[in-house]
């Protein structure tokens, strides 16, 4: 056991007097106090001040009414607080809150409607012509090459592939009527005549402008006629909506075999490159 100095004992003596020291420190302080008169007196002073403090800070008798008053005050405050926190639909603040919520909901609905309309007509679509592909049903009943469950292409997809558009002078309604009638009767019997009417439109110098390149693939399905000529058994109808809502380009073209189309693309290398 080590011997404590008076300085170290003075630091520990308040804990020793109050019984806070245990074990070796307690024994060391006790040994030092037994040998040191000054430290022993110092410890007695601590005891006196501690007892004086205890005497000074003894709480008075408060009485049952004092405690009852505290309880009543607390419970009364709790009850009042609960009453205040009960919601009522007829209080003005709830009316204000309801009106505010209605305004917020209305504004949200209007904003959503505005955003949805803005998304439906992006600026590039407003400039580019709108292509509507409506392949005519083949008279022979052969299904279209487009799959039944294939999702319809959106305008955005079409607009991403826009390369050029057809801008043709207005045709006389009689020309289209003749095409429709011939298609309805038998497309296989007069395919060359229709091509003769339609091809000049594509080769016309006025047919330059952006259009959806998918229009060729989107055109109607193949059909085989009774005579075995598959390219003449179907007529595709392509409607192109220009930026002007009053102008719609309707293009009726017979289904062609792949060979002549390839040959024609070779004749026009610029068009084949774009595809």
């Amino acid at each position, binding site marked *: 056991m080590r011997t404590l100095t008076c300085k170290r004992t003075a630091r520990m003596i308040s804990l020793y007097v*109050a019984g806070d020291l245990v074990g070796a420190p307690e024994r060391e302080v006790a040994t030092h106090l037994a040998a040191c008169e000054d430290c022993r007196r110092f410890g007695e002073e*601590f005891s006196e*001040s501690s007892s004086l*403090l205890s005497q000074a800070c003894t709480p008075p008798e408060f009485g049952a009414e*004092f405690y009852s008053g*505290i*309880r009543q005050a*607390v419970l009364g405050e709790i009850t009042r607080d609960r009453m205040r926190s009960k919601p009522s639909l007829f209080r003005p603040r709830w009316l204000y809150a309801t009106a505010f919520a209605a305004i917020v909901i209305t504004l949200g609905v209007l904003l959503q409607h505005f955003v949805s309309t803005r998304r439906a007509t992006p600026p590039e679509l407003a400039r580019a012509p709108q292509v509507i592909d409506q392949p005519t049903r083949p008279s022979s009943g052969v299904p279209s090459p487009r799959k039944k469950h294939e999702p319809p292409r959106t305008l955005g997809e079409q607009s991403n592939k826009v390369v050029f558009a057809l801008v043709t002078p207005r045709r006389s309604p009689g020309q289209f009527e003749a095409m429709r009638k011939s298609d309805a009767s038998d497309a296989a019997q007069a395919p060359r005549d229709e091509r003769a009417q339609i091809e000049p439109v594509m080769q016309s110098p006025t047919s330059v402008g952006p259009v959806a390149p998918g229009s060729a693939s989107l055109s109607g399905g193949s059909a085989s006629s009774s005579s075995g000529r598959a390219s003449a058994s179907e007529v595709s109808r392509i409607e192109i909506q220009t930026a002007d809502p009053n102008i719609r380009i309707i293009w009726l073209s017979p289904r062609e075999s792949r060979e002549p189309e390839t040959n024609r693309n070779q004749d026009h290398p610029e068009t084949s490159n774009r595809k």
Partner: protein
Amino acid sequence: MEVAKETMAAEMAHIFLTDAQEMLPPARVESADYFAVLVARARAGDEVAFERIMLATEQRVVSIAWRMLGNRDDARDAAQDVYLRVFKYLARFRTGEDFRGWLYRITINVCHDFARKKGAAGFGQLDQIDFVQASAAVETVHRATDPESLALQEQQLALIRSALQSLPPKERAALVLRDLEGFSTEEVAQALGSRPVTVRSQVSSARAKIKTYCDKLARKKGASQ
């Protein structure tokens, strides 16, 4: 420890005198489960359970508040504030924690808030206490017989209480809980949210300051004679 036992016995007596019919058997009052049940019921909105909690703890809470603040009115207001806070934050009380330790921590915090509101005008520093007046009171503290001596003694005790109030808040709280309320060092540490070694240091420092104040009183007394 004896002080703690006496206080517990006083609490028990107070509980039985105040509301003998509603209280649970005394064996359950001592246990932490007693408070756990009451806390659970009070959380569910049972005001009777909360009143029982107040009955079981109000003496100790008022005692701590009075020792921390030094007067009766402040102790009453602080005790009311303590129980309102307890009710408000009862949902935050973690199950399994010592409820009384949590309650005494709230009590100490409320007393600190009260002392802070009083500010500098509330309690002076040790050096500002009138030692001449106090030394005259010290002279009569152990042998007061006549009314004048009793009044002087009461004045001296009030000055010692003022010395306690002038301690730093944490040291004052540690000294009140450890020396005056009779808590163990670990209990004080739990109530103050600190470590036992910190509490020992705070208590030791507070005791030294109180002793220094008492020494000054004794020196003034010797000089006046």
